[in-house]
Each structure stands twice: as C-alpha cells, then as structure tokens.
C-alpha cells in the first residue's frame, strides 16, 4: 500500500511483471479478513492477494504462517498482513481492521470457532460478505437457516468424490 492507503497496481501488461493479476476493471479491490491459516485459509489468502485484494490473515499460532510459507503458499511476495491472535476476539478483529472490511472468511479447525467468528463479523461488525466453514453437516444446515453463509466440506467433498467415482469406468 502507498501512503494514501490505496493499493498500488503493477502494470498488468508489463511483460515479466511479477503480479499479473488485478481485480476486473469494474470491481474495486476488497479488504478481506481470513481467520485460520491452515491449508484452506492460506490458499485463499494467497489467491485473493494475487487477485489484487487487500488481505489480512489471522491465526492464533504464529507457526502457521511459516508453515504456509514452507508449503510455498504464503511466500515473500504475499503483500497482505499477518495477525497473531484469536479470531473470535473482538479486540483482535478490530486490530486486524474488521471495521472497514468488505469480506470475512472463518476457516479454523474448530466449527464452533468459525461459527462464532462469522457471527461476530456479520452481526457485530456488519461485514457485508461473510463465509464460515463448518464440517458438521447438521450445524452447517442449522446456521445456514439462520442466515449465515456456510460451506460444509464434509457434504461437498463426499458429493464430489461420489460423482467422480460413479463417472469413472
């Protein structure tokens, strides 16, 4: 970011430019908070950063950031911020800049932690786009009904595998 707090774009047409991605011309860059720096969280953070969005990734274990780097996901060209702290803690979220965030993703290992973090983002800080990963299908359905956008990898993953299995001869 430059001094005005605006993102500096690299020229996408410049050959050999390091960052080729930017949001489509009609889409402004979004400020995104990601709670949980596991495989999924770090992947989303890296992708969104490459797409030109402003990313803050939060994890209570600082080693998770270096683990992601070792996996080649959050490497030195990641321009976002890394915050160490509990993603259900309002103070930590405030420090990470939730008050002007456009999107929020909760992908820690704990279903309940994701549900709580997502609800705090949605109902306390009024973040417009909030997504929570919930492994337990029942809990995912319950909170989907309550208006939370939930992704249940258990059901999605199983469906996907079953489809592939039945299509393969």
């Amino acid at each position, binding site marked *: 970011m430059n001094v005005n707090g605006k993102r500096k774009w690299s020229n996408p047409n410049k050959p050999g430019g390091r960052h080729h991605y930017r949001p489509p011309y009609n889409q402004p860059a979004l400020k995104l908070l990601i709670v949980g720096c596991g495989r999924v969280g770090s992947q989303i953070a890296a992708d969104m950063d490459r797409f030109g969005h402003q990313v803050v990734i939060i994890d209570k274990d600082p080693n998770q950031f270096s683990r992601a780097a070792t996996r080649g996901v959050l490497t030195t060209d990641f321009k976002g911020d890394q915050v160490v702290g509990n993603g*259900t*803690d*309002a*103070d930590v979220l405030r420090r990470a800049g939730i008050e002007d965030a456009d999107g929020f993703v909760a992908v820690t290992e*704990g*279903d*309940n*932690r994701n*549900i*709580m*973090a997502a*609800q*705090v983002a949605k*109902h*306390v800080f009024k973040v417009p786009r909030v997504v929570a990963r919930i492994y*337990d299908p*029942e*809990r995912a359905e*319950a909170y989907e009904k*309550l208006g939370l956008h939930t992704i249940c990898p258990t059901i999605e993953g199983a469906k996907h595998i079953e489809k592939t299995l039945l299509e393969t001869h």
Partner: protein
Amino acid sequence: MYVIVVGGGTVGYYMSRDLLERGHEVTLIEKNSSRADWLETQLGSIVMRGDGCEVKFLSQTGIERADAILAVTADDEDNLIALQMAKKHFNVKKTIARVNNPSNVEIFKMLGVDEAVSATDVLLAALEPPITT
C-alpha cells in the same frame, strides 16, 4: 426447575451440585468420558456424555421441557453455540453463559444469549469501590 448444565469442569460441577441440593432437576453434559465417570461417582445418574452443541444429542436430554440452560465450559465459542442451539431449536426460555473473555459479554447478548456472566467483570467489581455520583 429443570436445568441443563453444559460442561462438567469445576464451575459446572459445583453449579450442578448446588442446584441439586436446592431441589432442582439437573442434567449435566460432559464431553470427556473419564471426567464424566468421575462426575457420575459424585452426582449420580444426572450426567450425560456428549457434545452440548449437537442438536441430536441435545434432543435426548429432555431439553424441550428445560426451564433454563447454563453453558459453563472454558471455551466461549462452545458456550455460545450450545446456547444458540438451545434457543433456536428448542426454545429454551432462559439461556445463561459463562464468558471467559469479558468483551464477549456484549457480543453474546447481541447474538441472542439471555445472560452472559464474566468472572473477570465480577472480580473487578469486587475490587473497585462503588462510584459515588
């Protein structure tokens, strides 16, 4: 009264014991089975082993006729989810949470919990002299 207590740690144990002594009907939910075994030796058959955040499990506890549910585990997120399930699925009249992070008192109320109690706040109130106006 019929009261469900989620979490059989120190707080949950003494809370259940006290409620029983006062003549109330209590079900104490504990996830850890060896802890539940110990609780059973102290309190008898009121202990149920399971996850207080799971709707299917909660439905086996007679929660529909509960007058109140107290969630007193050491994890705020678990307390919140258990109480939201009790409220939204089973219409329990009174939901009460133990809150470990004091800033969650307000948040829990915004998210539909009837009462949220923070030990930190209680202790601080005991320390501070009353403010005279």
